């Protein structure tokens, strides 16, 4: 994929494309890795008045370049924070409506943006693979105004069905999410290493809206475990700029996450 052709790593590509989804004067619920880098990049590019909220109960940190956190609840994640309300109260800010955007990923994702990070195969009680669990992913996708999924694009991830809905996207589509009691939010975008997906406003099925440079629709179809709907107005994303990549590499010089 082009990213790599130009020496851009998958996480660099995700961080850049993710950062472009963030607007100024908003708040973002960000986890470690690409989401964190996307937020830090957006603050330095076009969204200086963006506030990050971190799962560990951290509001408005100013992470130290080269000293990025490996978890959402440690001193590096809280570096130069503006407020430390605690974990429960940080999520309650999201439930109240203070969080505009949330970033999450997942081991399995279906066409409706439902994610599984709990258990794969077998039964839930005796699964083939027990994954770590939801952590705050379920809360973020349930409570933020809009969620953006950031993930590498692999066929095994983009699966026809998820074995367990850890984090509800649009559930079975249409108004299923609202009917389930999730009155707010939803998945807006799925940013992958191959392109950017939106969701059909009616069916709530994933729809390819943009390809990264050098990626074809067939590439995407080959690497997706369900039928890929393509937008009538399919576009191509602007490749990561040198400035964007320089900032990312300044934030993570050891390339711990890049």
């Amino acid at each position: 994929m082009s990213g790599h052709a130009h020496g851009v790593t998958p996480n660099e590509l995700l961080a850049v494309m993710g950062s472009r989804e963030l607007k100024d004067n908003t708040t973002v619920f960000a986890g470690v890795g690409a989401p964190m880098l996307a937020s830090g990049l957006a603050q330095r590019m076009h969204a200086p008045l963006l506030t990050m909220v971190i799962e560990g109960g951290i509001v408005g940190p100013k992470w130290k370049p080269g000293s990025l956190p490996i978890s959402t609840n440690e001193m590096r994640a809280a570096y130069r924070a503006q407020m430390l309300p605690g974990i429960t109260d940080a999520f309650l800010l999201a439930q109240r409506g203070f969080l505009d955007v949330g970033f999450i990923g997942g081991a399995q994702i279906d066409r409706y943006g439902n994610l599984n990070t709990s258990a794969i195969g077998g039964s839930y009680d005796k699964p083939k693979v027990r994954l770590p669990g939801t952590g705050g992913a379920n809360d973020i996708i349930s409570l933020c105004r809009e969620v953006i999924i950031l993930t590498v694009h692999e066929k095994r991830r983009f699966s026809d069905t998820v074995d367990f809905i850890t984090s509800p996207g649009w559930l079975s589509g249409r108004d299923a999410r609202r009917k389930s009691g999730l009155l707010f939010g939803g998945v807006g975008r799925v940013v992958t290493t191959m392109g950017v997906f939106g969701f059909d406003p009616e069916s709530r099925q994933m729809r390819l809206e943009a390809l990264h440079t050098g990626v074809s629709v067939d590439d995407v179809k080959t690497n997706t475990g369900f039928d890929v709907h393509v937008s009538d107005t399919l576009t191509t994303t602007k490749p990561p700029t040198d400035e964007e990549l320089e900032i990312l590499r300044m934030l993570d010089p050891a390339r711990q996450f890049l």
Partner: protein
Amino acid sequence: MTISRREYDFQAARHRLEGKAKSAGEKLTTIDDAVARVKNGDHVTFGGCLFSRTPLALVRALLRRRPTGLSISRNLMCYEGEWCMVAGAVDKIVTSWMGIGLPWGLSKIHREYVESGRVPMEEWSHLALGLRFRAAAMGVPFLPSLTMMGSSLVDVGGSKIIDCPYTGEKLLAVPALFPDVALLHVHRADRFGNCQIDGYPHMDADIARAAATVLVTAEEIVSEEEIRLHPDRTVIPGFAVDALVHVPYGSYPHECYGLYDADPDHFSEYVDGINRHGAAGVQAYLDRYVYGPPTHVEYLSLFGETALADAGRRGRELVS
């Protein structure tokens, strides 16, 4: 007297918040610009408690705009509630208690306005009102509680009893209260609206999350760096604040923990006016202390530097 749907409509309250910019940017402005955000008919909640950290500078600035049809709420309502009654600004008062304190007896103004039915008082227990703000801060339409059960208060606001889905026991579903506007006074904030409070927090942090619009006065505006060096002291995040005004002695003659003590002699002077002239005594007080002084400095000069310095000395002594 029953609660109105807009008080507990968590979906509408959430949509209002979703529609707002949540900026990490500048919040500093003038007090008149701040209170210009209050519309007639709004539900306005005052922070602090009784005569502690009451946002009096904001209340005065608000009353100078001669608002009408407001609902006001506060857990323990001091004489700022009487001001709103006499000024003709309020249609409803939501509180658990109204007065100044033991030494000053029953509030004649509270009695006059409520007994005549001119301004209804919606009464909740102190905890229930706290839970109304907390439910709203949490973004839910109610919180379960055991308080108020069996009392006549249950019916006053129209709150409901539910059965616990797990234990089958009865619980009071305390309805959320999402104010249109919150008026708060804090110890310090940076210019982005990140607020810190010393001593007892009262209900301000919940009120700030519950309200659609948050107006704050601060005793001190500190650097962003100072806030970031003590983030565990911050109780209100900047993105939740709409307007911030630097107002030293912003709750005087009420107290501000560790900075200045209240001025009970002034309370007595105020009550004397009521004892002699009834509501006209409050009107005279409003003319002198609320409508009169064009600036906060001129307001403070009515008390004199000695009184302010003395209140400051007492306030510092009480926490050292």
